[in-house]
């Protein structure tokens, strides 16, 4: 049994598929995410593929603060992803709310809504920083304490909340 777990864990580390979701960023972080997927930085070296649908993805790359409007969409996308799933907060805004932190229409960082595994600071994040964060997340899966947050029990997620 242990060996099977090990093999599956190996597969998980070697093939992280990402989904990119803009929760209200100023678009600079999004451009940097795209830049790190293009030939200059080539994330496919690590097996990263950009997927269009949450069902295929393992890692949710969130950029930007969570606005009030996007909150339930973010939850929904998070819920549509299959376990095991990880969330990376890309940029200062996603980590804490950043410059938009005290806006009337902003909830705060990504972790006010869904559990986050890795925070990558920067405004906007550098592609190198993004790759570093991703590699650190994958490396943590090898060790005894993976950055795996328990997703909340399905019933207490405020999906229907307006």
């Amino acid at each position, binding site marked *: 049994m242990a060996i099977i777990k090990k093999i599956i864990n190996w597969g998980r580390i070697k*093939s992280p598929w990402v989904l990119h979701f803009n929760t209200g960023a100023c678009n600079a972080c999004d451009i940097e995410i795209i830049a790190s997927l293009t030939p200059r930085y080539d994330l496919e070296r690590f097996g990263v593929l950009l997927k269009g649908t949450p069902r295929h993805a393992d890692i949710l790359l969130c950029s930007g603060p969570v606005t009030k409007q996007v909150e339930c969409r973010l939850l929904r996308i998070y819920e549509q992803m*299959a376990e095991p799933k990880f969330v990376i907060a890309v940029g200062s805004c996603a980590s804490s709310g950043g410059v938009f932190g005290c806006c009337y229409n902003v909830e705060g960082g990504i972790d006010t809504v869904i559990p986050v595994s890795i925070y990558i600071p920067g405004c906007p994040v550098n592609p190198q920083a993004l790759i570093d964060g991703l590699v650190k997340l994958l490396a943590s899966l090898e060790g005894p304490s993976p950055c795996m947050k328990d997703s909340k029990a399905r019933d207490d997620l405020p999906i229907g909340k307006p």
Partner: protein
Amino acid sequence: MLKELFNILVFPGLLFLFIFGMAIEFVDRKLCARLQNRIGPPWYQPLADFIKLLGKEDVVPQESDVAVFKLGPVFALAAAATAFLYIPLWNKQALFSFSGDIIVVFYLLTIPTLVFFLGGWYSRSVFSMIGAVRTLTQFFAYEVPLFMCILSSSLLANTWSLSEMTVFYLAHPWCWLFTLPGFFIALIALLGKLEKVPFDIPEAETEIVAGAFTEYGGRFLAFLRTVLNMEMVVGSSLLAAVFLPFGFVHNAALSFMIFIAKILFITALIAVAHSVVARLRLNQMVSLCWRVFAPLAFLQVLISLVIKGFLVMR
């Protein structure tokens, strides 16, 4: 009995097809990456993807038709793997053959496409429904040129069996040169079957999320990806058997190498095609197939008939 079971399940059947399909996927992705001046994925990437998908949670949408959703990928896998048994690979003789097996291979190759349609349709999500309809529309476009080209080759050989075709082309060497235009048309049509880039309209991820596969995840997606890999191997070995029928020497190892080289050649052509062109629109694709490729395929049939007349007169 035992030997046949081994042939069907291990070599050159299911297991070989599975591993070879992964190798081809890797070659395809790596070549594409190198053409874009990237480093590309490591050699174990398709295997890691497969294992990861097996280890993920299976989500079945509440609205979907559970039986179709779950059983479809298995049917597609079985059909693609069965088609492989009727194609002459490195022997003159395919594992199984009878007169008319070319039709059976056609039908079996159609089943995965149909499964993509049904799976997408019964997932009951808007994106997957659009993808499913596009799959079917595209299917009506590329199928005619593809089959016409393969039939032109079989007309020349005057047989409906793939193995007998190979025997004919070995008896008349260089006859395959006359069907070479058909090879390129069939190759382009094969891109449509595999949903590769100029024709990846059904799963255009920039427009309709992931097309028919939108709701698939976990084990089912792993199966579907395997089916696509297998289709790639089966399709290119069908083209290799029909249009490049040479190199069947007595030394088994050597002719195996020649077979691999042929498949790699076709894979390389496909990789080049889908890294240098962009996606077409559905109407462009349909009109291209019907207005350009279908007449060209007819021309190929005419050429084959004329050559056949010469052969008969001689």
